[in-house]
């Protein structure tokens, strides 16, 4: 009984941490963008205000049961992947489900959310939503290739598919995997640009022509849940990269520093580029990123 | 250029003797007026035989005092670099003309506009009645006997202004202590 309570408390604490950090990172993204554009920009806690406002909307509409379930699906995906990814190195604080799932499980639970969102978007009947979904799914076939190549390279080099084991490898050897498997790291970071869907890969939302795409019919509490799930998901992705390539983190401060440095890559890259067409984005991922993925696999096979 | 224009006018006159030509422009333009029965044939002739392939614009003028509508077709010849204003007049009380959209398909749009805005009926024009004005119930609004101000006053709410219509800026400066800038003073009444 005590362990169940401990589990629940740990899960809630992890969720709150991910929510807060993800929200603040979103706000910092807006702040950095503004500073680069020579603006003052909103305060770093702006996303909290937005979320609070969305949650305090008095009315809401839905077009049917799937639109109602859609945000819940996304939340399931975000929280489940959060439960599987180890937050800190030694696991004594937030063990959650770290030992119950592995990398391939994580890959699949991470696409659960976009599919659930796609179902919700489909039910609205808004053609913009459906177009956004088709773009998103097409984009996914692009960035999953280098991403999986990088992961497979790590798996075959260290004979494990568990995230915890990969972290232990780094602790024991004292070298971060981003240095011992540089090609895998490059491929994975390039795939991350697509995962975050910032410019130039913001083809799903595309406010100019698709009116924010899949979420165009969602407002108020639905948008609030989606926004929270997105923040949690951003945290999960960053933490996963830190765990896999940057040796994990012993305490929260190190975790925040590492994730923030990593987060700067998509943020700063997005500031320098404009949007690709979907097919160009897919081909981009099948080009250099996949080449680096291939190099990573070759390295793993021949230089074990 | 004058010779070219004369040449063209003569060629048109050979086929359409009853036209009136106005050719007192210093630039590459002359005007041709014709009765409404011959308007199809002259436009066809200009387009297919004389090379005035391009329809630049079409206008309608309401001659209220004379009880007529005048429709003006501006055609342009890319080869000769000359434009002709072809005018025709129709009765204002019975404004009926046969459709011309077989000559230039873009005339279809202009005809729909004339029908809605002036009430000119084009026989053979296949298009829905409503074009730009949604749910319009008044008379055709571009006719000169349509009083828009009265219509607007009757249809829409008005925000009443002050009776005295004074310049209030000085009163405001007194209240707030702000100065009226120099450049703004010349606009004072």
């Amino acid at each position, binding site marked *: 009984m005590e362990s169940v309570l401990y589990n629940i408390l740990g899960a809630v604490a992890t969720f709150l941490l991910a929510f807060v950090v993800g929200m603040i990172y979103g706000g910092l993204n807006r702040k950095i963008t503004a500073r680069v554009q020579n603006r003052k920009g909103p305060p770093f806690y702006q996303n909290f205000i937005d979320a609070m406002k969305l949650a305090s909307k008095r009315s809401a509409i839905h077009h049917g049961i799937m639109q109602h379930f859609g945000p819940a699906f996304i939340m399931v995906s975000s929280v489940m992947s959060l439960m599987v990814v180890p937050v800190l190195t030694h696991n004594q604080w937030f063990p959650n489900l770290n030992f119950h799932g*592995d990398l*391939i*499980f994580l890959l699949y639970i991470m696409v659960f959310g976009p599919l659930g969102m796609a179902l919700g978007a489909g039910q609205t009947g808004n053609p913009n939503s459906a177009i956004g*979904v088709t773009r998103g*799914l097409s984009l996914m076939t692009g960035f999953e290739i280098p991403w999986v190549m990088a992961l497979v390279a790590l798996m075959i080099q260290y004979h494990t598919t568990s995230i915890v084991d990969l972290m232990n490898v780094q602790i024991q050897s004292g070298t971060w995997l981003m240095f011992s498997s540089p090609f895998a790291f490059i491929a994975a970071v390039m795939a991350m640009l697509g995962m975050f869907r910032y410019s130039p890969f913001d083809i799903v939302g595309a406010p100019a022509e698709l009116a924010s795409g899949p979420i165009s019919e969602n407002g108020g509490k639905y948008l609030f849940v989606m926004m929270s799930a997105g923040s949690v998901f951003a945290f999960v992705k960053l933490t996963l990269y830190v765990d896999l390539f940057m040796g994990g983190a012993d305490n929260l401060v190190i975790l925040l520093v590492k994730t923030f440095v990593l987060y700067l890559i998509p943020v700063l890259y997005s500031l320098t580029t404009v949007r690709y067409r979907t097919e160009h984005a897919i081909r981009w991922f099948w080009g250099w990123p996949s080449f680096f993925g291939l190099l990573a696999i070759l390295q793993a096979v021949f230089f074990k | 250029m004058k010779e070219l224009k004369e040449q063209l006018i003569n060629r048109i006159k050979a086929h359409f003797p009853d036209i009136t030509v106005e050719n007192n422009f210093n630039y590459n333009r002359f005007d041709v007026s014709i009765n409404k029965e011959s308007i199809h044939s002259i436009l066809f002739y200009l387009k297919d035989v004389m090379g005035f392939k391009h329809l630049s614009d079409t206008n309608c003028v309401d001659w209220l005092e004379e009880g007529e509508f005048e429709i003006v077709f501006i055609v342009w010849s890319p080869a000769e670099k000359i434009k002709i204003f072809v005018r025709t007049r129709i009765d204002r009380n019975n404004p009926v003309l046969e459709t011309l959209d077989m000559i230039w398909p873009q005339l279809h749009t202009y005809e729909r506009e004339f029908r809605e805005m002036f009430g000119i009926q084009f026989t053979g024009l296949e298009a829905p009645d409503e074009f730009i004005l949604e749910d319009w119930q008044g008379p055709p609004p571009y006719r000169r006997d349509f009083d828009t101000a009265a219509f607007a006053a009757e249809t829409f709410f008005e925000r009443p202004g002050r009776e005295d219509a004074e310049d209030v800026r000085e009163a405001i400066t007194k209240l707030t202590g702000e100065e009226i800038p120099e450049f703004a003073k010349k606009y004072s009444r």
Partner: protein
Amino acid sequence: MNPVLNIFILFLGGAILTYFAGRINKVLQSLLFLASVLVPAFLFYTQLSIGQSATFSVDGITLNWSLNYFGWLFSLIVLGLGAMAAIYAVSYMKGKQRLGTFYFNFILSIMSMTGILLSQDLISFFIFWEIMTWSSYLMTIYNGNKVQSIGIKYFVFSAIGAYAMLMAIVMVHSITGSFLIKDLINAYPTMQLGMQIWIPVLLLTGFAVKAAMMPLHVWAPGAYSNSPMAYTSVFSGALSKMGVYGMTIVFVTLINKIPQGIWFREVIAWMGGITAVIGTLWAIKQDDAKKLLAYSSVAQLGYIITGIAIGTELALLAGLFLAVMHALFKGTLFMVVGAVEKQTGTTNFTEVSGLIRKMPWTFFAALLSIIALAGIPPLGGFVGKWMLYESLITSNHYLLVIVIFFSSTAAFLYCYKFLFGFFLGQEEKEWSHVKEAPAAMVVPMVILSLLMFVLGTFPGILLSPINNGLQALGYTDSYKNLWETSVILNGWGNHVVLQPILYYIIAIFLFFVVFLTLKGYKNTRYVTTKDISSSGEIPKEDENLTFSENFYQPFFRAVEPVMRRQIDKFYKNLGEGLEALFEFMRRIYTGNGQTYAIYVIAFVVIMLLFGNYLLK
């Protein structure tokens, strides 16, 4: 009397009785049909025990029918799905023509598949195989349309497979002097190398045709989409698994026993991978639900073949688990298409949309099976996919795992297209009269989809029979003791524990659904799909805004070079070349224009000549 024989007599008698009962009463006919599928299935599980056999001797040839664990495993697919499809079929076929033919062929298909699973000798195996081919061929042309293009394609490919198999049987008999499979297995390791290669190649050709492997898959989309949907769920779900059944036996008992088998395994595994990619890309392009599912079946069988060809313990388990899962979800999905077709009269995504509120239970079944098909936890498809990836990675197939992964990522595209095309999108006035399918159609779908849910959380229920089946084939497993009901494990000792994951998913899902429902409940309104934010415009009642034409245009712009119709073109050119040859031959012969018949005969002659050369 022998219970093995009883089952066949019941099947056959039931089929004949059902066929003629239609002349008396339609209801009686349907009841007889149900009885003649369900009663033998019931007897199969109650009367038959493992090892029970019946042996006859006809003209000096020993025929042996007996039940082993491996056959029992596949009987779950055949009889379980068959029973569900039979219940579904009665309702689906109501009001259709030539019911007698349909029921007769249906029962015959089930019987022949049961026969294949029980046959322990090659002769009865081949006879049952041919009965299965013929009954399914008659179902393919049951609608009476496209017989030329689809029926003949299926016929020709089946004939190629059958003659290849017959060749192999003749070769086996000439070496061992017996038709028993047992004798083949015992004699195989001591054969000459030529025989060791040719017997599996010919047998695999026969099985690959039924399993729709890459160069031989051309018949599948047409045949699957042209049969009545109630039968297609058996056709794609169970009948294609007979190919998998045969392949598994060939791989485990023959190929894995010789050192050269590694080449076979690599080639077939890669062919499976390529099948998966090509099938997936074609499935995404289809606008017709039947065609989409048919190509998707080709792709899914590609995974299964890859798993079986790799041949490690985990890969075999993955392949067979996926085979059962595929039977469940593809059977359900074809039933869903049938239900939609029955209620709306069309299966085209560009015509139907927004059925979710009209057919909620059908949507529920479709949703669960699509999640299983996409391989997303916590449904059963995930377990199979997980084991497949792990087995590929642990057995050093690094590029193949990328290929397979690309295929299953791209599979999300057609998964979404299927759900969106029928059930989501704008609700149209044209389909406002549509109602939920009859209960007899809905119940089998829902039962099958709930089974997927159970298997996704407790795969051990299915994994232990698979393990038993593999042991029956002589496979000795290394880490069986580590298996638990809801834990899956790979060769490196990494695992996924499914049960707590399911609890977490349900808890989070419920929490947020309740949150979304309760918060300001009174002010949460349902609005119709015409009430969308389309720049302030108000769509008219008969205006259709659903986006369904050219659904994945950007994706296809990206993959265009891959998408040319290479294989069909190859066969077309081959066919044209052969036709020119026959044109020439027709001048010598009397001018009988049965081109395809000659094609088949020519094939047999060539194979026989070739085989004789090898025997010397």
